[in-house]
């Protein structure tokens, strides 16, 4: 009896940590709930879960013994990770299909979570290339693409360093947008598609994942979580607009 009680605590604690990590790294709410319930079922427990913007309330029940386990856990602020999203989701299926022990489940989870992050230089270069491609898609010429690539490297580097320094992310967005667009505004001295260059230089900051997740959450009925995600994304977009406006006010009044 005592062993079982410990088990429900261990499993409840694991599921809470697992769900919070998934929410933190940008997984939409219904997937988090499905995965958490799947792991609970694999161990013979029923999982009830309420997800909010900043924390999760979790309840684990053993229908046989009527035993209950409750936990409230804060959602950590983690970088968006599609890899964690996919691998942690797959882990819940593996637990369900192969009836993994909690020890195995925990070690696999730790391996996923503690795997090395993607090299920041690798991210920097590809974000620069992606943003330059956006510039092309919006009608920018080759000169603008080059300038946007370089401006994005500057803005993204600043974002990476300020994030590592633990600076408030609204300030990070304002400063990064300002510096990237200021750098891109150097295109104005050439006869090139400079307006497109300036506009697309800040696109790397657009919070695409919260926007998409917000819509998915609302459509799937998690309206509170969805709206809070959209509200947060809207604040970040306002921050980008503030940073971009600083540049436009500075460089030429005709641009705004």
């Amino acid at each position, binding site marked *: 009896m005592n062993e079982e009680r410990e088990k429900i605590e261990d499993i409840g604690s694991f599921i809470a940590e697992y769900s919070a990590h998934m929410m933190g790294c940008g997984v939409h709410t219904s997937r988090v709930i499905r995965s958490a319930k799947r792991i609970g079922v694999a161990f013979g427990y029923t999982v009830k879960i309420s997800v909010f913007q900043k924390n999760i309330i979790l309840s684990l029940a053993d229908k046989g013994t009527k035993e209950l386990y409750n936990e409230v856990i804060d959602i950590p602020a983690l970088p968006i990770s599609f890899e964690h999203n996919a691998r942690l989701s797959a882990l819940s299926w593996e637990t369900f299909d192969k009836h993994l022990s909690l020890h195995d489940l925990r070690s696999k989870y730790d391996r996923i979570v503690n795997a090395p992050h993607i090299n920041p*230089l690798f991210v920097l270069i590809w974000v620069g290339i992606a943003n330059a491609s956006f510039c092309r898609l919006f009608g920018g010429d080759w000169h603008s693409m080059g300038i946007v690539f370089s401006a994005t490297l500057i803005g993204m580097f600043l974002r990476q360093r300020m994030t590592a320094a633990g600076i408030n992310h609204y300030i990070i967005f304002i400063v990064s947008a300002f510096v990237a667009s200021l750098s891109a505004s150097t295109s104005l001295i050439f006869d090139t598609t400079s307006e497109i260059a300036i506009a697309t230089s800040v696109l790397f900051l657009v919070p695409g994942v919260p926007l998409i997740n917000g819509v998915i959450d609302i459509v799937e009925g998690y309206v509170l979580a969805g709206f809070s995600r959209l509200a947060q994304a809207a604040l970040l977009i306002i921050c980008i607009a503030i940073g971009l406006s600083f540049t436009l006010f500075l460089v030429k009044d005709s641009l705004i």
Partner: protein
Amino acid sequence: MDIFWSTISQYNSATWIYQLIIILIGGGLTLLLLRRPDRWVKIAMKVFLILVYLWISIVYYHIYCAARSYNIIMSIYWGFLAATWIWDLARGYTQFEYNRKYAGLATLLLVMPFLYPLLSWLRGLSFPEITSPVMPCSVVVFTFGLLLMMSRKVNLFIVLLLSHWAMIGLSKTYFFNIPEDFLLVATMIPALYLFFRDYYLRHLTDDASKPKRKYVNLLLLLLSIGIAVILIISLILELTTDVPPHLTHFNR
């Protein structure tokens, strides 16, 4: 084009004596930094760089390049660079510690500002309508050389801002017909590769990196080669075609 060279001409005529003083101070501080790298010398070098960047921002762009379109952008950009150096001075980030490894390339970069006027002269230009050692591109090359020579701990944000300037140089060679800027970009490419490799990959093991260190290094190498290829194409385009009139009207 006319305005571009006439602003340079006015700037050189009016400031050559101050430029000479700046060159002497810069040269003296560089020698001191190499021979007696005391703390005050490092601080003095940073103060010197802040003043030179402000000089470019205010004297060169704001005053003498007022006739050019959007000179204010360049003025702000160089002001921002000066502000970044002030932040670096306050935080003591760049340490100016000698690194023997890249001494060859660094020496070449430090000499480059003097090659600029020589190249202008070889192209048939004469004073005051020539590029001089206290102009934006020359200052960028000098800073790159200095940072590479003292590259144990470098402020990569400043390097990125300067490389952005160098990237603009690629377009300038084509739009404004300034082949001198090829020197800037050509020497900048290997320096950039070395700065990035040292900053991101020097202390990294394969286990701690995803993708593996060698693949990230390969990507960086490919990027550098890509920029070099674009540079060569720009050079060929400039040598084989005249700049269309519609590309220069905005600067007249």
